[in-house]
């Protein structure tokens, strides 16, 4: 069975672009428009193996999403890769301390994202 990936971004274009790249690589993709939606989608989709998450989003941003994710033991240690326009070292460090496994600065190269997701899902399996 293909690994299920949750893509979280307030931009429809980015969700579609990431979804297309991951689907073509054999992953199963679900999406969410912000951190609140992502927590709900994770709860409804047990067994999600990785999250690709934007940082700047309305309602709940990517860093707040990480904080909430780590507080909830039901989500276990689902790996998260941040995909964002942000490149600030302090923000990257904050995400790392909250357990993020990767950081990609937009615009992203689809092959690079697929390689990262493949590596992290294999490691988590």
């Amino acid at each position, binding site marked *: 069975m293909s690994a299920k990936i949750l893509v979280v971004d*307030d931009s429809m274009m980015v969700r579609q*672009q990431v979804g297309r790249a991951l689907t073509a690589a054999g992953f199963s993709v679900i999406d969410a428009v912000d951190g609140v939606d992502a927590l709900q989608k994770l709860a409804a989709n047990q067994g999600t193996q990785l999250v690709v998450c934007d940082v*700047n989003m309305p309602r709940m941003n990517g860093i707040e999403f990480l904080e909430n994710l780590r507080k909830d033991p039901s989500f276990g240690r689902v790996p998260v890769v941040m995909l964002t*326009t942000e*490149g*600030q070292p302090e923000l990257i460090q904050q995400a*790392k301390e909250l357990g993020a496994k990767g950081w990609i600065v937009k615009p992203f*190269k689809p092959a690079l994202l697929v390689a*990262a997701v493949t590596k992290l899902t294999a490691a988590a399996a």
Partner: protein
Amino acid sequence: MEPSTEIAELFAVVDDTLVSAALELFPAYEIEVAHLADEIEVPPSGATHIYAAVIGYAGECVRGALVLMAPMDVIRSWRPDEVDMTEAILDDTIGEFSNMLLGSVKNRLLARGAVLLLATPTIASGINFCLPAPSGGACRWQCFETVKGRFYARVDASFDAGFTFQPEPPATDDVAADGDMMFL
């Protein structure tokens, strides 16, 4: 009124950064783009229906906004896929490109010591857009040519007294660049 020499020099750093960021961003989406450096035309007026994304930014002693403006056919060509361009998709596309463009400017200026916080994009569409220059600051339209037509970008910047950019540093790994991937 012309900005002072000091403001003009500070603004040139921001403006040059905008141009270099745009010339890297669009090719990353396989959009060929040329900067029309001598083009002083402002965005088209009259009957052309255009879309504009505006994002404000602020840092210590500096603030302003990015405006990205393009007609529908040009925005459609920015999409990497074939979709029916509804108003929502047009808004989303120009909003995301403006977000990535200003994000790239922000990351580049971070290396010059300016820490900027960005708002989220606001989208407008219509004809006869008129955007006055910010009072006490500087701005300039930049024009870019693609196979589907021209688009326009403008960064507004106002600086408080005493604001400076640090000298351009040598290449470093301290700030993540566009397209970078890091395992944490």
